[in-house]
């Protein structure tokens, strides 16, 4: 099969590790060979969390310039991970900012989001951008951003996975109390990327 290299970036607590893992589980169900990599440990405490899923190859990580798809859970982190992209990359990003503490204590300036999106748009094949936090809140669970992003990934039709398989995987692994809001969030993401 064609190799697809997918990179997820976000901030500790946003749930991108769960997103990449669920995608991995869905690949297994669909009989697609996939390997997922995660970062655990010290880096997780409020820092940048990156994970990756590679379909159709053996290496568990994605080198600079080699992502087919970049999924950003936070806009400045999407921008930071732009070095994972090439001109053919599809970028899907949340536009809701989470400024790091360094900005608060004056050690850095948070980038202008609109300008950032323009830079990304000019350099890759497709940019899909929306307020994922708003969609998660609308779905009834602010912590369901990862489901929104997964929905957007499937909706973008850049991977050979159908929404049913993802929904089945979400249903199998989500606690009953969050299932409805998670599936709703997934659908909102799905719709957001189809319009985008």
């Amino acid at each position, binding site marked *: 099969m064609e190799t697809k290299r997918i990179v997820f970036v976000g*901030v*500790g607590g946003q749930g991108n590790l769960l997103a990449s*893992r669920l995608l*991995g*589980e869905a*690949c*297994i169900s669909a009989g697609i*060979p*996939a*390997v*997922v*990599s*995660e*970062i*655990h*440990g*010290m*880096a*997780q*405490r*409020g*820092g*940048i969390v990156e994970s990756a899923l590679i379909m159709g*190859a*053996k*290496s*568990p*990580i*994605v*080198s*600079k*310039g*080699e992502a087919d798809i970049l999924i950003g859970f936070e806009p*400045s*982190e999407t*921008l*930071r991970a*732009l*070095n994972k*992209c*090439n*001109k*053919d*990359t599809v970028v899907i990003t949340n536009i809701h900012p989470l*400024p*790091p*503490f*360094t*900005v*608060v*204590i004056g*050690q*850095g*300036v*948070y*980038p202008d989001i609109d300008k950032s999106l323009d*830079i990304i748009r000019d*350099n*890759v094949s497709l940019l899909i951008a929306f307020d994922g936090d708003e969609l998660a809140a609308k779905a009834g669970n602010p912590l369901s951003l990862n489901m929104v992003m997964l929905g957007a990934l499937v909706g973008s039709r850049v991977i050979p996975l159908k929404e049913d398989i993802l929904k089945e995987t979400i249903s199998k692994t989500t606690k009953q109390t969050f299932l409805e809001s998670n599936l709703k969030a997934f659908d909102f993401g799905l719709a957001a990327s189809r319009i985008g």
Partner: protein
Amino acid sequence: MHKLLIDSPDTEMLLLGNEAIARGAIEAGVGVASCYPGTPSSEIPDTFFAMFKEAGFYFEYSTNEKVALEVAAGAAISGVRSIVTMKHVGMNVASDSLMTMAYLGVNAGMVVINADDPFLFSSQNEQDNRYYARLSGLPMIEPTNAQEMKDMTVAAFDISEQLKLPVILRTTTRLNHLRGAVRFGSIKPIQSKGFFKKDPFHFVAIPAVSRNLHKILVEKYDQALELSEKSKYNQIIGSGKWGIVTNGVSMNYVQDAINDLGIGDKVTILRLGFSYPMPEKMIEKFLSNVEKVLVVEELEPVMENEIRSIAQSKGISMPIKGKGNNLFPRLYEYDPGLVRKTIASYFNVPDTSPAMVDVSALSELPGRPPNLCAGCPHRAMYYAIKKVYGPDAIYPSDIGCYTLGVLPPLSMADLVICMGGSIGSACGIEAATDQKVVSFIGDSTFFHAGIPALINAVHNNHNFTLVILDNGTTAMTGHQPHPGVDTTPMGVDTTQLSIESIVRGCGVEHVQVVNPLQVKKSIAAAQASKDFDGISVIISKEICPLYARAIQKAKKARPFYVNQDKCKQHLDCINHLACPAMYIADNKTMINESLCIGCAVCAQVCPENAILPLKKPA
């Protein structure tokens, strides 16, 4: 039933590499498992912890890696299969026992899981522990993917029993923390009880005994070599004239690169999974069929040097390269692009890597270093100590979440060496300077390696303050218990030890226990310590809020807000505490209600009393 205990062979599951190792141990019928947690190995023992009662084997979080290795050794000598897990620097701690265990050998399979951390994702160094196989004489095996993490754990027990030696299974962070499909095998029944058969003239390592044991170990090298020559994890793949030697996670990068570059028919891969002893005959056969060789191995040129040496002894002459200019670095981990590029350049074929987006036009992004959590009690204690001792005191620190205190504006770590290093190094700094010294160590780290150093400090009349940051758990590695933890909420029955009693038992006379969230009392305790001549200890006792939440012991506290009418923008809260729940918007200091856990430390620090609890709990 725990998902990893399913006894139906051919079940396929997406497993974390570390879960795959745990499943391997289950399939091998492990009877005793021990560990000291440490990234990237921690999920192996955490997986054992979640299932050991149900599965019926013995498991413990040991006090440190040396003890953990001895626990596994005692079991394996008694005829029970055992496994011990640790990170690479943990092997340094365990190495004293490991070296002599190679002499003593085992009666049942004993597997030492060693997790290296190239790129130092969560470690103080990136040492290459393949040298430990060479140093100890113990066999080493190296898996390349999730399936092999499971399969080779099972195989390691068999190798161990064939050689009657502990076997080291070496992983790297990328393998521990990848997820891949794993097909299960059948589960061997657990044998959790054995019998210690007395044989003092084999198992008591006195010089007269060990002289003979060393001879036996050297003889076992030849047996191990034979196993390595025949191992299915040592493979020659392909028949091209370009030779590539690789191991571990790099094997994946090599296979993908060859595929991407379309040079499969030109290449022969020698994959070394049973990597010590190196299979000399197989290497000779490989070398005799290729014209030049590239060695793809992360960190040190271990295989490269040994293959050159084998080539020399067999009278084979050809370019054998690995590390060097335009080749591979000795630093950090490799990635698919680096391996593809280097293979392309070494064998002179066009590189097919896509061009990276030009990011030179991007303005510099604000850093996002990891940070102590909102409401972390370490932050409060750092505040109190700094208030009393000032920025010029020297603050040796240790291994744990609190090491993050190194970052400004806290800037509360001046020296970090290794587990327990904060106390021993304080003795030296205090003896060699006239500067004030305050050391910080976590509760788990204190038990791990702090106690002998504290005894040293008292016995040799040193003069400094030790702060034990007791948050009731091993926080950084994922909230594992330690001897000071009440494990009842986790459903296990262990004996809880008092840090205060131990500190007093070490001979410390000036001991204070404070709740760091009480700022005035903490400052007073710091002052009392500063005024004392000799070793003083402050036990800063408050539960890790993340752990409290995990065990459902979190206190319900109202989050705080900043009363903008009262706030005069001193920014003491922002500048001295750096709590991630606080931020500035439109020149106003604000608190993120959803992050604030209501620890109230900032409210005590504010000179205007402008930080107040919200009326209703969020």
